[in-house]
């Protein structure tokens, strides 16, 4: 079966499912409506001028956001947000280990509590970024909707950036709401809060989200099937392992001065962001739910010579933003030359 036949079959299956879901059949019959307006009433002689590039970026942005609201995406996002307080309740009230809850809900400092509530943030932000931004462009090309959009009097740059901004906005919004939920959960139970650290953590996380979205988007620009899994594996596992391996190599060949570079890898930004507020306190292990967090909890990181996570949030955020912009530029270079 050729690729076109597979796509056509997929579209037909979706139409059949939609029809079954709605319980009504749309007959491919022509209605007999005549044109109801005169030539002048229908504005058939109007001439329109193309709006500015900024306006067109905004149109693409809003159109993609509308698509998100009509897809399962928005429900996935809402589920993740609702899961935070639910998981918190389960881990503090329901699940216990040796009589003690998995998460001790009594915080002296709110920041520690927030860090604990957001322990899953590294995994979730990467998951969300890759799923949203890694699938948009391949979906357009696979479903052939790009054949409608790209011939329009709109530069590919507007199309590219408009869609990216919508994905990034959604992930950033989820991240900010997660922080808000964490604050709402933790503040009633604590006596002290360092708000500057919270703000710094949020900004660092946003920079990390920007990089993850841009990286996934860049990989998807050339991909035919989507870059979700590829970017997920690279960000969650590949880049951290590379960083650990490089720090070990630099240490072994007596190039210690280069070891700190590995702590600046952007894959560790969520860990840096969370740990800016403090180390998550979980009874089974303390640390973030990421490869770095788990290895750190089991003492592997401390045994790894040369590796040290960067704690300067400004530097790490700046690196993430710069790398994110470079990823976007690279992705645009690919998409501007992609033949349909």
């Amino acid at each position, binding site marked *: 079966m050729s690729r076109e036949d597979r796509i056509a079959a997929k579209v037909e299956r979706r139409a059949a499912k939609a029809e079954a879901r709605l319980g009504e059949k749309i007959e491919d019959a022509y209605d007999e409506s005549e*044109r109801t307006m005169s030539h002048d009433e229908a504005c058939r002689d109007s001439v329109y001028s193309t709006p500015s590039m900024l306006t067109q970026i905004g149109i693409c942005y809003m159109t993609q956001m509308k698509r998100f609201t009509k897809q399962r995406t928005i429900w996935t996002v809402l589920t993740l947000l609702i899961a935070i307080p639910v998981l918190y309740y389960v881990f503090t009230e329901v699940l216990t280990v040796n009589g003690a809850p998995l998460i001790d809900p009594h915080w002296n400092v709110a920041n520690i509590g927030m860090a604990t509530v957001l322990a899953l943030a590294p995994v979730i932000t990467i998951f969300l970024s890759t799923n949203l931004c890694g699938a948009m462009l391949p979906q357009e090309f696979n479903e052939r909707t790009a*054949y409608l959009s790209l011939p329009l009097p709109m530069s590919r740059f507007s199309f590219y950036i408009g869609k990216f901004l919508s994905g990034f906005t959604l992930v950033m919004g989820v991240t900010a709401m997660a922080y808000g939920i964490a604050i709402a959960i933790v503040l009633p139970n604590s006596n002290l809060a360092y708000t500057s650290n919270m703000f710094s953590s949020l900004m660092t996380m946003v920079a990390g989200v920007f990089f993850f979205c841009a990286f996934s988007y860049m990989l998807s620009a050339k991909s035919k099937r989507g870059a979700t899994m590829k970017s997920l594996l690279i960000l969650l596992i590949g880049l951290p392992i590379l960083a650990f391996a490089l720090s070990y190599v630099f240490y072994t060949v007596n190039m210690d001065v280069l070891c700190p570079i590995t702590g600046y890898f952007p894959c560790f930004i969520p860990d840096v962001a969370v740990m800016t507020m403090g180390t998550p306190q979980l009874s089974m292990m303390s640390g973030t739910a990421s490869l770095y967090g788990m290895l750190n909890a089991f003492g592997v990181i401390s045994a790894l010579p040369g590796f040290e996570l960067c704690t300067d949030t400004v530097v790490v955020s700046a690196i993430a933003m710069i790398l994110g912009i470079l990823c976007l530029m690279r992705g645009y270079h690919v998409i501007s030359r992609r033949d349909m």
Partner: protein
Amino acid sequence: MTEESDAPLAIDIKGLTKSYGSFTAVDSLDMQVGKGEFMGLLGPNGAGKSTTLKSITGLVRPTSGTILVNGIDARNHRKAMTHVGCVIETPECYQNFTPGEMLSYVGKIHGVTNRELAIRARDVLEEVRMWEWRDKHIGQFSKGMRQRVAIAAALLPNPEIIILDEPTSGLDPRGMIEVRETLRNLKERGLTLLISTHILKEVSEMCTSMTMINRGKTIISGDVNTLIHNMAQSERSITLDIRTLSVMTPAFLSDVKAMTGVSNFERTGEKSIRFSFFGSDEEQADIVDLVASHKLRLLSMNETGADLEKLYMKLTEDGEVNVR
């Protein structure tokens, strides 16, 4: 210079080449579409028709050559496509959108004002017979219905140039007829149309001019009727079948064979003959006079002449390019 050669061109392609690695899809193609012209782009599968249209509309980047749309370089995509509507290779619309939402997206990109967006959307949906389904999700539509929505999107911004790649593809016979009617209406409004199609009848009935390409090269280009007429003249492809009421005499048969423009003479029965004829209309009328002079009483004279199908088959025979 005549007025016709001074007329501005809607689409001007010079030396267009598109290569995919070692494979050349379009090879130094030249093509001009005048303003107000209705051009059909013909060719077998893999000839380079879609690649040519995609190069015009910015879906592929040409390897070399120039394309001007309304005098604007196609590389300046935003400007070049400002007054152009197109449907290339059965585009899909967003499945979860309604036709109204899709047209809103397309219209805003073109700069259709909010006030006129609803008016224009209604007008074009009525034109393609999709007004009744304006609030249904496109994902529920058949292929033909989606094609009609795509055509509506192309017509929405009142384009000066319309480029359609096999516009009747996927449509049932009634849909085909209605799309052709729509295209005729647009032609009467003075729009420039460029369609690529496999259906020769569409070209012969609707198009004023045509370009035939094969293996990425232009084979022939010009006015449809002129090309067919020239082919008929040069290829001697008119066949005359004559039937008489009386039995044809040997004298009559030898007189016919001796006439100017007669070849491939064949007696198909006692009262019927067939031959190829490439003479003028006057010489053809002389044959009728000859039948009368021999008192044979002409029953019928059928002319099966050259048509677009024969021209197409002749120029693309054996998959070889017969460049003229």
